[in-house]
């Protein structure tokens, strides 16, 4: 009788423990999902910014923009007799 009662208590303890583990895992999954979501949003924002900066860089280096800047600062294309070819 005593052994049976002990076994029952252990079983009940395990059962409660399992339930506790299940709850703990569910909470952890939720926490991780929140964390993941936060990081993913941050990553997306950084990637968006990166793309925009690259696009801006492409625009700033575009031949048309450089030509406008060159004209603004008084530069002009080299004349035929001003071009030097430095051969290796």
């Amino acid at each position, binding site marked *: 009788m005593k052994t049976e009662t002990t076994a029952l208590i252990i079983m009940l303890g395990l059962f409660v423990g399992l339930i506790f583990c299940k709850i703990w895992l569910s909470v952890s*999954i*939720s926490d991780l*999902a*929140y964390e*993941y*979501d936060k990081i*993913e949003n941050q990553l*997306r924002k950084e*990637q*968006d910014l990166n*793309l*925009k900066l*690259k*696009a*801006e860089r*492409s*625009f700033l*280096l*575009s*031949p*048309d*923009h450089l*030509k406008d800047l060159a004209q603004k600062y008084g530069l002009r294309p080299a004349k*035929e*007799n*001003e*071009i*030097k*070819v*430095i*051969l290796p």
Partner: protein
Amino acid sequence: MIYRRTRNSTLGKARFWIFTIFLLLIWGGLLARTFWIQLIWGPKLVARACSQYFVASKLQGLRGKILDRNGVVLAQTISAYSVFARPLEVENSSKVARVLSIILSEPYAKILAKLKNDKKFVWIRRKISDLKAEKIKSSRLHGIYLTREFTRIYPQGHLLGQVLGFTNIDGKGLEGLERSFDSYLKGKREKFVAFKDAKGRIIRFNLKATQKDLNGKDLILTIDTRLQAQAEDILAKTVQKFRGKNGILIIAKVKNGEILALANYPFFNPNSFFAYSPLEMRNRAALDLFEPGSTAKPFMVAAALEQGICQPDTIFFCEQGKWRLESKTIRDTHKYGWLSVSAIVRYSSNIGIGKIALKVGPKTFFQVLKRFGFTQKVPLPLPGRVESLIRPPKKWTKIDLVSAGFGQGWATTGLHLVQAYVSLANGGVFTPLVLVKHPELTKPESKQILSPTISKQILRMLWEVVNRDGTGKKLKLKDISLGGKTGTAQKSDLIKGGYKQGAYVASFVGVFPALSPKYVVFLAVDEPQTEHYGAEVAGPGVRQMVLNIAAMDKTVFRKSKAQTPVSRHRYLVQNDLAQLSDLNRLSDFRGKSLRYALDVLNSKQVQTILKGKGVIVVGQKPAPGTILKKHMKVHLYLGFPEEVL
């Protein structure tokens, strides 16, 4: 006492039972309620909970980029915010409309009308700048929301505009490469179910795909942005100078048919495609048919040489510039007598080529045009490409045949002509044009369509056009061997029939280095007003383009020049030469320009080694004053003005 104790016990029992029954009733009620909720209302409540806590959401991949051969971005997608309203949630619509009209620079009445709409959802403005989005966010307007969308931008502006095409507001390719490669470029979309918490935050448990996995693929072109920019610049100047209607400039590599530049003028900027007319969006190089004029003569000569009808030195009588054939009169610009085949090409004699044409015959010439790819569409992934307009040879009269020889009576596109010249220049191997480097597309097989000997003979004739007293003699270059063919074609009158008075297409095809070509450059101007000869209108533009290409590819210089760079002291100004003449010692170059130092050192025939980056010499080895010896090594350390030691 006993009685009292018995009475108390009876009362206690009664109380116990009353309390027990009361508890049982409560438990029974609770159980009944649980039963009712779980089994009767259960499915409905579960559905309601799901709709509150779980939402169907979607993840959209970015559209792929379009890049040039060096990785320069020509088109890319970035995120942008769009503003929308839920009119039923807007409390003070006039105040909200006023704020939005200031931020978005849109009429107040227009926004107010949208806010007073009885719809549940209405767009206020799509794809706004980040700055405007931030202002709207900080205004905290009730019923006004921001959502993230994607927008397509073209950082290089009008560069390659007509070829790239554009996408609509929803990111679907509508024209050009954007249209042809729409399914390849567009990002995938994945739908998923996410959990929504009490604060409305969406949490995704399914981690199967990230946005990166869903992004569209990148398209890499053969175009070189630097050459494309120069080509557009030269083309614009040429068309404006001669007051033409439009123009095209194409540069292709002979070895593999790769197109390095494909310029159309007037320009088209896909960033603001809605501001352009369909004519301005038109990729004329692929779509517009024109009669090639004298640029077609080498193909008639190729047919004649191949058939053994003549040799480059075979002579034909050119009727002193006027030839009556059937009811028509064919004229040359000059009165030529007997001319060799080479001279016919060199002077671009219509009568001479007409006489060759009569010997070649329509069927053979048609077959040659077919082999050079004129009768098929160019194998490029551009929407709306057309075939050349050539009638079946059996319908050709004598006059048609003669006219076809000098490029009249049939029409083709700029791309067809460039493809044919590339094949001619590539030892007679049909070389299909290529515009896309990645993904690799299937293209027609490269095969020998003309013997290498005949190809060389024709290249020699093209060299003579520029380098002897030919129609392109003004285009001769000192250090680069340029060959080419001028073209001045009359334009047909589509309304009245026949040819339009004073309307021409002036063109020039350049191949260089002439006898072992690496590049083909073609420029055509439609209806130039101030001048109409190909050599005068298109020639200088091609010449300038050749010089620009040479600045990037030194291998195109004549070998003799390339081996003697030290002979280039002609750049020195007079004062420098005087200073140099009495010195046999190494000058002090510190603080002087690199250009000056190179001029001096090259003239002294010493070997100059450049170290570092910059335009000013900041140090040198050996020290100034060292006695100079032929071929000695002089190290120049470069820097910028403030670094001078």
